[in-house]
């Protein structure tokens, strides 16, 4: 568990501080609502048997995606996991494209070739969603290396879970990034669980990412991942550091996934009451209160909610109407020649 000092650090930066400004706050709110509505819709569509394959929702973790995306500039790059809907949407990828991919339609982001676990939208800086634990941490280093080499100010951001901190690639990437002083930000979303196993059962330190920062000469950063303002501020500091050429950051965000690990998981392994306690700290609930505290009118909030709902409804209809992908695309994009030309 987090120490008292951790809790103090995690809280710091929350509360009534108007450094963020109304426009950004409304954006952070809107993003979170988009993620929530789109993913809840994905779940409904799954129940209707319209989402095939697997899918991994981030319900309850929206503040992390919104806070980081809110701090990103256009050239910045996101590297996500199979639990990547939220991060993909947060960069502005249309809901229709994401739901289309989950529904395996021709209007999907990758026309059904990738599926829910591999959402990619290079145009939006979403450089892929990776389904092998840890794989994308070194890859994000490489993208950061390009920026460093070219003298660009682009930053690569790599999102992953608590469980990912125990795999070899995590270690190699963190050391590598620190030694090369790469402009990359490693964001650990500690949602307390791997698939079904509590992270504490299999990790030698209480905070799987933060307690390891020192092993890479990095500062220990542990924040409240359910408060988009806190996330946004922490992100800004890390982006500034990266753009100033001062190297990587490792940020552990304390959060909770309110859904099961994947679509099929009823999450029975949770202790009684845990989910309810975390729902009291639901990021959207927190943020709605925050807006009200800052004097945003209820009506403005309701308008955003309604707009978002309409976007998601329209996307749903578009996807339902979309055809499945044509069969001839199975042969394209294996190699750059467009086909699968492994022989003459």
């Amino acid at each position: 568990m987090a120490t008292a000092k951790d809790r103090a650090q995690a809280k710091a930066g929350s509360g009534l501080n108007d450094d963020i400004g109304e426009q950004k706050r409304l954006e952070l709110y809107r993003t979170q609502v988009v993620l929530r509505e789109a993913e809840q819709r994905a779940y409904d569509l799954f129940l209707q048997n319209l989402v095939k394959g697997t899918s991994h929702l981030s319900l309850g973790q929206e503040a992390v995606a919104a806070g980081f995306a809110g701090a990103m500039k256009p050239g910045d790059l996101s590297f996500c996991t199979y639990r990547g809907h939220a991060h993909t949407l947060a960069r502005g990828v249309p809901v229709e494209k994401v739901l289309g991919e989950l529904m395996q339609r021709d209007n999907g982001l990758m026309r059904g070739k990738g599926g829910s676990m591999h959402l990619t939208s290079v145009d939006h800086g979403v450089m892929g969603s990776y389904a092998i634990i840890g794989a994308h941490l070194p890859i994000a280093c490489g993208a950061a290396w390009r920026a460093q080499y070219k003298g660009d100010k682009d930053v690569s951001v790599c999102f992953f879970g608590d469980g990912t901190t125990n795999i070899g690639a995590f270690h190699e990437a963190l050391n590598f990034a620190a030694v090369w002083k790469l402009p990359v930000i490693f964001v650990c979303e500690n949602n307390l669980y791997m698939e079904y196993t509590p992270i504490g059962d299999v990790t030698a330190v209480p905070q799987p990412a933060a307690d390891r920062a020192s092993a890479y000469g990095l500062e220990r950063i542990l924040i409240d991942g359910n408060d988009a303002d806190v996330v946004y501020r922490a992100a800004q500091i890390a982006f500034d550091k990266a753009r100033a050429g001062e190297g990587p950051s490792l940020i552990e965000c304390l959060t909770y996934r309110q859904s099961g690990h994947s679509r099929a998981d009823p999450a029975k392994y949770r202790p009684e009451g845990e989910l309810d306690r975390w729902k009291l700290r639901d990021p959207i609930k927190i943020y709605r209160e925050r807006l009200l505290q800052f004097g945003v009118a209820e009506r403005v909030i309701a308008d955003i909610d309604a707009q978002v709902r309409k976007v998601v409804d329209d996307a749903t209809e578009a996807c339902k109407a979309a055809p499945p992908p044509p069969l001839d695309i199975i042969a394209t994009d294996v190699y750059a020649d467009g086909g699968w030309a492994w022989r003459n």
Partner: protein
Amino acid sequence: MAELTYRDAVIRGIAQEMSRDPDVVFLGEDVAKAGGVFKATVGLYEQFGPLRVRDTPISEQAILGAAMGAAMTGLKPIAEIMFSDFFAVCFDYIANEFPKSRYMSNGQVKCPLVVRTGNGAGSRFGAQHSQSVENWCMMIPGLKVVAPSNPRDVIGLLAASVRDPDPVIFLEHKSLYPTKGEVPDGEIVDTLGTAKVLRSGKDATICALALMVPRALEAAEKLKAKHGIDCEVVDVRSLVPLDTQTILGSVARTHRLFTVEENPRLCGWGAEIVSIVADEAFYDLDGPPVRITTPHIPLPAADILEDIVLPTPDRIAETVRRSLQS
């Protein structure tokens, strides 16, 4: 005799061996308290307790490395790698450590362990969770490689694998987990390196593995019904050791060879069997040996796309018919 799912057969197979031998231990991600992501290990933790059924961190190298260290010092570990695609993150153990330790040490070190894994396509999981990796393993000298196609074989071959003195890769097909089959009561122990002729025929031999076995059988029925073509279907079951005698014997009777693989096209076990037959039984063959495979592509996620890339009964039947009638 009882009807059992392939999934439950895995549970029964592990339990049979753990009950028999207290040195059999089991480790993997989410395998203990949660019963495994495919529910193929439900109840083992409750039955055998936390010392023998252990949840691990997401550390595939540590899982396989620990299995090896335990095996070389006297335990009989069963390690689960959740999806066979993840062999790539722990491939050093599979390719360089397990299979070489006995040889490099001139027989001093033994590595009797089993790696169980969920292999194969059909679940719309996309390119990184759907692969058939039997050739990743078959190509490595020192490994044994097994892939059962039905619940009875799951138990029998798993028992044989656990009792084997060498490292065995045990490939469970994810799409077979819900399928059912008759399983006799009592202990079941099979023999590695034995293929099974599941259907006799005189016109052609079809070798298949795992999920492709029921498809090959279905294709054979279609060929018989529609075209009067009579195929012998061989369930290869064990890639290493490979029962070449059964395969060569069948080809000697039918004079034609077809292999049905879920592997991508290049360097699969089909190529190995074709090469053995073409070399050793060239004059038995009345026509070209033909491989039916997944095309040489990463697997697509969408159902409609995944369905057309895996060999289907229709594609198998059509390929055999065209080849025999040309």
